Structure formats: structure tokens, C-alpha cells
């Protein structure tokens, strides 16, 4: 009785497990790890990957699911009738895609509510396609976003400066960022290393915005130079890194954080190269 109470308060172990033959347990293990891998590849934080994978396994009827997430792999063990099955998958980053994360989560919720069995869950998850927004729309929206960042920076200037709308500066930021985003998409689609992509994009953005300093366009051309590279700040990995570490996943948190610093360093190298080529020193 005491043992049962203790176990029911432990969310890692299911009391409602049923006996499975080995092929069925193997199938459940595969479904679990493929779900976890899909979430990890599309930018979910470690806590979400672990909890959804475990919930899926428990609702499909194994007794417990243990997940270990490494920097670029995921390993998973299911326990059923005191038989263990362990498997490992390599994790290749597919880029942040919240649509995939949402759809996978809804499929897991449907299994938990009893609406899906193993076969239908597999069919539903395999049918999820990334469905990106049209590239030109994203590029224009990112350009517009950086123009907004430029305006926000103009607003927070000290009171001694002119804080009026600097349309020229915002327009220059828009042009530089849209072009840089197009370059980023172009290189990304050809599977270049992200570090190379960020380096080239930063060079393009700073080269365009640097013309504003050379020809003295607008009120604050240096703000345009600073704002046009903000599309290259890896904001999502930054937040994921800290929240992983706060929730106890130190190793994935550190590896995500290191990637953020490397991407930042590649971007800085691109900025420095552009500033040396055009001989405009807008940052420091």
C-alpha cells in the first residue's frame, strides 16, 4: 500500500502498464525516440522533449521511459515487464520550426486522451510537413523588424540627440536586413555551415548599411549599422540555452550556449571584415 502510494506520486513510472510482446515494445520504443528526435531537431527545449517522449511511452502502455539528451544525439530506454529496450538516434539540426513542435505535441495529446493507437499515431506524425512561410515574405518581414529595431534605438537615444523619426536610417536598415536575410536563406538552402552563412550575411548587411556612414545619409547612420545585423542574433538558442540549464539539463544548455557564442563570433568577423573593406568604423 505504502509502496503503491509512493509509486503513484512518481510521474516517471506508470501503474497502468500492460504486458507487451517484444515486437510491440520495440515499436513503442521507436515511436518514442522518433517523436523526441523530431522535437529536438526543430528547436524544442530539453524539458519539453523529455516530458512529451515520456508521456507518449506511458500512454502507449510501457512501464517507464528514460530519456538522456546529449549535445547531438538522443538515447531512450523503455521498460516493460522488466524487459529493457534501449536505442540511440543522431540529432541533426533542422532549424527552428514551431509548427512541427505544435503538431507533434497535439498528436501526443491525442494519444493521451485515447484517440490514437500506435498505427494512427505513426501515420499522423509522419504526415507532418514543415510548411515554411514563403521566403520573400519572411525576408521582407525580417527587414521590417530590423527597421523597427532601428526606430526603437533612435527613441532611446540620450535627450541631447535628435530623437525624431529618421526615415532614411530606417529605410537603409530595411534594405540591408532584407538583403542579408535573402543571403542567409540562399546559403541556408544550399546547406552551408550556419557559421559560414552568418559570416556572409553579416558582411552583406554591414556593407549596405555602411554606405549610410560614407555618404552621411540620415540623422544616425551608425544606428542603421548596428540594427541591420540584429537578424543574426540567435535569440531562440539563447533563451533555450538558459532555460535548459535552469531546468537541470546542463550539457544541452552549455552546448546550445557555445553555439550562440560561435554564431556571434562568425557574425562579428563578418562585421569587422565589412568595416575594414569600406573603412567605416560604426560600432566602437
Amino acid at each position, binding site marked *: 500500500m505504502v509502496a503503491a502510494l509512493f509509486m503513484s506520486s512518481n510521474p516517471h513510472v506508470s501503474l497502468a502498464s500492460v504486458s507487451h510482446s517484444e515486437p510491440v515494445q520495440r515499436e513503442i520504443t521507436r515511436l518514442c525516440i522518433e517523436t523526441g528526435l523530431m522535437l529536438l531537431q526543430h528547436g524544442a527545449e530539453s524539458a519539453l522533449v523529455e516530458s512529451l517522449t515520456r508521456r507518449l511511452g506511458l500512454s502507449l502502455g510501457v512501464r517507464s521511459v528514460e530519456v538522456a539528451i546529449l549535445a547531438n544525439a538522443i538515447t531512450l530506454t523503455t521498460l516493460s515487464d522488466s524487459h529493457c529496450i534501449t536505442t540511440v538516434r543522431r540529432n541533426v539540426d533542422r532549424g527552428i520550426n*514551431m509548427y512541427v513542435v505544435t503538431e507533434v505535441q497535439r498528436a501526443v495529446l491525442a494519444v493521451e486522451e485515447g484517440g490514437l493507437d500506435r498505427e494512427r499515431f505513426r501515420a499522423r506524425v509522419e504526415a507532418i510537413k514543415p510548411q515554411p*512561410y514563403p521566403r520573400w515574405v519572411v525576408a521582407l518581414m525580417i527587414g521590417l523588424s530590423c527597421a523597427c529595431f532601428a526606430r526603437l534605438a533612435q527613441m532611446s537615444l540620450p535627450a541631447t540627440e535628435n530623437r525624431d523619426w529618421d526615415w532614411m536610417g530606417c529605410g537603409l536598415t530595411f534594405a540591408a536586413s532584407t538583403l542579408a536575410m535573402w543571403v542567409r536563406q540562399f546559403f541556408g538552402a544550399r546547406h552551408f555551415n550556419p557559421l559560414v552563412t552568418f559570416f556572409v550575411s553579416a558582411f552583406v548587411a554591414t556593407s549596405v548599411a555602411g554606405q549610410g556612414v560614407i555618404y552621411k545619409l540620415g540623422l544616425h547612420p551608425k544606428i542603421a549599422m548596428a540594427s541591420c545585423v540584429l537578424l543574426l542574433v540567435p535569440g531562440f538558442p*539563447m533563451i533555450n*540555452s538558459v532555460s535548459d540549464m535552469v531546468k537541470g539539463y546542463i550539457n544541452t544548455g552549455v552546448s546550445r550556449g557555445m553555439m550562440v557564442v560561435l554564431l556571434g563570433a562568425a557574425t562579428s568577423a563578418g562585421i569587422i571584415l565589412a568595416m575594414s573593406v569600406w573603412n567605416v568604423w560604426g560600432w*566602437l
Partner: protein
Amino acid sequence: MNTLFQLLQNMALAAVPAVGFGMLFNVPRGALLFCAAGGALGRGLRFLLITAGMPIEPATFIAAAAVSFLGVYIAQRLRAHPKVFTVAAMIPMIPGVPFFTALLAVVEIQRHGLTTELFATALTSGLKAAFIVAALAVGLALPGLLFYRRKPVV
């Protein structure tokens, strides 16, 4: 009046990057509206707190926590994890300029040798960026740390 106008301008200008980066993160179409609302709310609240005299780091923390609690409420109706749209809402508050300033100052130290000004720039900008990112991430994690300790949000 001037503060109110600035507040509205801040909120409108923050909503655009939240949606723009939401599209980059491929947030589902139905949740883009919540990215915009969260971005505007977070940046607006932070602006008010800073105007009232609070330092930027605690102001960021409170703004992120407010967006996160609202995100939990919406997430349970949308049947999606709150991070799906709250991270895009945090983008207007990400300290991008201090982050790059710190890294560029390090490169300049390497190129031209150590000066007190460059070292101070590198250290203060880097610390500012790190503290604001930590405030954002911990603020976002607050509902889980306080209320959803043993049960999932969705």
C-alpha cells in the same frame, strides 16, 4: 501624454519584430497574433517600468514573467506549448546590440592591444547581454518554477 504616446509607439514597434521572427521560427499562423500581443505587452511593460525608474534587468524579468503567465493561459486553449509563441514575443527585448558590441570589443582588443576603454566596453556590454538574456529565460520559466512543478503546462 508624451509618455503615453511613447508607450504606444514602443508597443507597435515591438509587435512587428515579434511577428517577423515568429515567421522565421515558423510559428503556426493562428499563434502569430499572440506573438504580436506578447511582444507589445512585454516591451510596453518594460518601457513603463524603466520610465518609473527601475533598472533594465529586473524590468525585463517582470515583463517576461507577465508574458509567460499570459502564455500559459493561451497555451491551454491553443493546445500548444507556451514556448511556441512566447519566445518570439521575447525577441524585441533580446539585447542584440550589447551582445555584438562585447564580441566586437574582444576582436578590437586582439587587433590593437588592451586598453581600459575597450576592456570596460567588452565586460560591461557582455555582462549586460548575459544578465538580460538570463532575466528573459528565467522570467519565461517562472510559471513552471512556481506553479507547474510536477504537472505539464499542456
